[in-house]
């Protein structure tokens, strides 16, 4: 397998707050990896650095061998075409109906062939288990779980090579969370997409990822197959996955 994303010595600070501190990670093509870690450890910052939304202070981020970290705006835009992104809160555009949200990655907000775009939206909504009856609804008229699924439909509509999931199951009840987990698994398997999920939901991490990595103090301190998550031999990982108050993580 070829390496899709390479992160080398990535560092990012905000003021005096060091968030990422020499992070290294390789993600192979077609692989689904989950990055776990406490809230506030820089998981979202990691994703935003990969997308080129934040410029790291130091280090290299290669997407298919091309540098994202110090790329021009034009190059960043071209590299972003490889990505789909599911935001934690959905981040649907509330001034637009569902069908325009789903096809936004194809139209970039322009008024292109409406009939064709509605058909594309319908096809992608069907893939995430939603029907055509919601095409004309506004995001505020949807439940949290439906918003996540519409966000997922929007992320896959341009058929990206890589999808990034930011806390895909946070705020959902266990049944809805499982629906989202199933969807992510099927997308990775059916479409052959490379997936990076950041989460602190262990059930989700074990279900959707081939490999799990733990972020702590700005670095990946452990990574391994999902089956080793509860048998990692790393006291930080053990404390985190078992949810113990006592341990090396303060």
């Amino acid at each position, binding site marked *: 397998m070829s390496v899709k994303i390479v992160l080398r010595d990535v560092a990012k600070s905000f003021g005096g707050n060091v968030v990422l501190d020499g992070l290294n990670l390789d993600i192979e093509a077609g692989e689904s990896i989950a990055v776990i870690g406490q809230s506030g450890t820089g998981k979202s910052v990691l994703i935003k650095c990969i997308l080129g939304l934040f410029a790291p202070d130091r280090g290299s981020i290669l997407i298919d061998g091309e540098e994202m970290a110090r790329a021009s705006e034009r190059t960043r835009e071209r590299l972003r075409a490889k990505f789909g*992104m599911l935001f934690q809160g959905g981040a649907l555009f509330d001034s637009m109906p569902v069908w325009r949200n789903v096809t936004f990655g194809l139209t970039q907000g322009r008024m292109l062939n409406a009939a064709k775009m509605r058909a594309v939206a319908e096809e992608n909504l069907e893939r995430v288990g939603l029907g055509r009856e919601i095409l004309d609804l506004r995001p505020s008229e949807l439940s949290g779980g439906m918003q996540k699924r519409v966000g997922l439909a929007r992320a896959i509509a341009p058929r990206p090579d890589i999808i990034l999931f930011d806390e895909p199951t946070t705020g959902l009840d266990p049944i809805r969370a499982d629906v989202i987990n199933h969807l992510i698994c099927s997308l990775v398997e059916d479409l052959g997409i490379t997936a990076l999920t950041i989460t602190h939901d262990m059930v989700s991490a074990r279900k959707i990822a081939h490999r799990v990595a733990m972020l702590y103090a700005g670095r990946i301190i452990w990574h391994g197959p999902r089956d080793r998550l509860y048998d990692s031999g790393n006291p930080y990982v053990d404390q985190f996955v078992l949810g113990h108050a006592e341990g090396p993580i303060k």
Partner: protein
Amino acid sequence: MTNKALSAGIQAFAGIGAGAIGLFAVIGRVTLFAWQTVVRSVTPPYYPMRLLEQLLHIGWYSLPVVGLTAIFTGAALAQQIYVGGSRLSAQSAVPAIVVIGIVRELGPVLVGLMVAGRVSSSMAAEIGTMRVTEQLDALATLRTDPYRFLIAPRLFASVIALPILVLIANAIGVFGGYLLSVYKLGFNAVPYLETTRRVFQADDLIMSMVKAAVFGFFIALMGCYHGFRSAGGAAGVGKATTNAVVSAFVMILLANLLITIAAFG
């Protein structure tokens, strides 16, 4: 001088210095924001439908409040000039001062302030909410430049709509003065209109339009800038909204003074 007094003096200067640096930093950021918007808006993709939407929002939906403000202000101005002028036996100056006062000064300033209150706040709230709910990040990941998609249509629509609104407000304001003068103060309609026509000059209208375009630029710039930089959830959006309105008001009043001095000083 004791060390304590010296230290207090240095602290005071440090505070002034920090304030000045902060002010220049804000001016720099706002200028860069405006520059980026203008530069990016000249290259494709263009969003003509977004521009039309904003023209409707800023121009058409502001008409009622602008019309009411103009007619009440025109009428009140006529009454004030009549009362003040009667002390100098100069009541006949009412039509002349109404038209000059409205077109040169009150029309653009009052429309600017009213539209700033309505539009700057809504722009800051909308874009600020998009910021804190990651919709701006979502735009970028979907390869859409927020400057081109969100900021440029608002900026250009505001610069186009404000002169049109001011033109309408000028006409309604002068008409308000006319109504009060003729139906309450006892002026004859034909001489009143004749004086208005004679005193009114094209230069006054051009100045009015220039002011309106500049005010339109600052209204949208302040609304978009503060919304774009908002952070910290609902409280951050609320703060951005307040800052947008206050800074738009200040910029309008400052720009009005500078343009007036430049043109008539």
